[in-house]
């Protein structure tokens, strides 16, 4: 008569995930049910197709990028730990965390980690710079076929011009922070438990 979901997820695992991500016990079990319901193959991992099956995600212009963020370099499957690790970036920053042990490593959902995550969604080749091409790629995904190449190019140029401070015609992480810092709290998912 035990519970189906948590017999597959052991208490020790839940504790480890709690420490690593900061989610609460009930949030973790909830997200585990979500994970298993997406896992149609029932093999404990999610593939890209499993994510694509979510209609609201499939119609999102940046859907593919978001899905990619869950998969580590060159891998095609993500397990529950990896799933939670990625989602942990979007946990709202709580007040009581600000006074935590300063020696402990930075939590996944700190401001700079959130911004780094958003930065990496643009910077595909991980060279710590958003080049004009990378910017154009994301722009193209968001506008589809509705804006011409020249117009899109000039938008990209203007964006880089405004954000670039050291004149290398690309946006580094520090320059990105200056632009994105105000909005970063917007990327929070408030999981209701």
């Amino acid at each position, binding site marked *: 008569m035990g519970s189906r979901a948590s017999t597959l997820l052991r208490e020790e695992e839940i504790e480890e995930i709690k420490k690593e991500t900061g989610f609460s016990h009930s949030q973790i079990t909830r997200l585990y049910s979500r994970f298993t319901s997406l896992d149609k193959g029932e093999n404990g991992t999610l593939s890209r197709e499993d994510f694509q099956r979510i209609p609201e995600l499939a119609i999102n212009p940046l859907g593919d990028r978001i899905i990619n963020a869950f998969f580590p370099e060159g891998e095609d499957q993500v397990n529950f730990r990896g799933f939670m690790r990625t989602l942990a970036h979007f946990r709202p920053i709580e007040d009581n965390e600000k006074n935590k042990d300063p020696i402990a490593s930075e939590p996944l959902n700190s401001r700079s980690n959130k911004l780094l995550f958003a930065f990496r969604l643009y910077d595909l080749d991980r060279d710590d710079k958003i080049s004009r091409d990378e910017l154009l790629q994301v722009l193209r995904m968001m506008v589809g076929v*509705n804006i011409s190449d020249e117009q899109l190019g000039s938008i990209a140029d203007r964006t880089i011009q405004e954000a670039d401070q050291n004149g290398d015609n690309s946006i580094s992480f520090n320059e990105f922070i200056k632009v994105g810092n105000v909005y970063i709290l917007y990327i929070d998912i408030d999981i209701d438990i």
Partner: protein
Amino acid sequence: MTDLCEGGMEDLWSIAVVLLQVWFSVMIGFIMIPAMFGLSLGVTSVYIQILVKILEWATLRIERGHRERSTLPVPAPLPFGLIQREGGSMEQEMGELRRYRTQSISRGEFALSDSFYFYIKGLESIVDDQVTQRFSSEELVSWNLLTRTNHNFHYISLRLTIIWGLGVIIRYCVLFPLRITLAIIGLTWLVIGTTLVGFLPNNRLKNWLSELVHLMCYRICARGLSATIQYHNKENKPQKGGICVANHTSPIDIVILANDGCYAMVGQSHGGLMGVIQRSMVRSCPHVWFERSEMRDRNAVTSRLRAHVAAKTNLPILIFPEGTCINNTSVMMFKKGSFEIGGTIYPVAIKYDPRFGDAFWNSAKYNMVNYLLRMMTSWAIVVNVWYLPPMTRREGEDAAQFANRVKSAIAHQGGLLDMAWDGSLKRAKVKEEFKEQQQKMYSSMVMGKKAPANA
């Protein structure tokens, strides 16, 4: 030695025969005959009341157990989803995001933070989305003592376990054989009865007898599921020559609706047992069965249905415009084909009470036989059926808009969520156009033009 054995065997045999006789007379006397005439001995309602009391006790006991056991809060199902979401449209939410911009960036142009909107929407849908949950069974507020609905419930107390064990015994050893027998009798009667009626010439007597036979059979089948059906607003019952549309949760919907009136069924002709039943049903009154090849030709389908509806003496046709089974928490897109036929639409809302048994047929997980077995080993089926006032297409309204109007009415009456998503997303991928729509909306924001009105 052998004499004793033989004597013993004969005794056993005669006991078995007597038991069988008792069994059948109980069945026929107490269940079938009242069912055939629409009467009720009240046994089922007493049973339901007892069940409700037991389930309420179980709920309280589980809650108490949770409180005593740990400080963890009781995980409750969240009908509106896991996350707090902003409810706005793309325009509204992007607008908020852009409010923080400094004056130097002109309004309507791109900014690096615009992508954050899409990120957050995407991530929210990964954590919880409105669509995929409709294709699996609804989560219950509290456990209803069926193993199959056991998601997060732990061992609480000995008494609860005993009651659960008793429940298993009663459901599998007492109720299940009873229900199977009834179902078999009901279906056999349907085949025999309709074939017999089929021999009569087409006149009023035949129609009356045909209706009687159908009703009797469906009533027996309903007893075979311990179904308690409450019909509301019977004055709006579908009339001859009309089209009845309802939300679809399971194949049992047909039995539920046909308990109170006669309908002409629409569907694909099958082989095997279903085929036998279908062919005999057609002998006594016209149903509309399509060959598989015909179903692909939409015009042929529509014209056949139109012909059926035009003959005002034909029974109302029963259609489920969602096209697939949904889990009874929402109503998904109605396919407009049924609304192009013309005629009067009689909407019906069906809502199952999930405490007594999960009626949703998850056709990806269970096949029909498996599903029926699960139905017959649930506690009972408790349904509310609302007949809504008839609707016709308005001037200037096209079939899709009409379909949406009917869908909203049904969702509103049944307390279900009205969703625009297509039920066929259960199996198929979402169309590219929806993504293109989003891209278009965003593009017009970037170019500074006004976004289309219905965002």
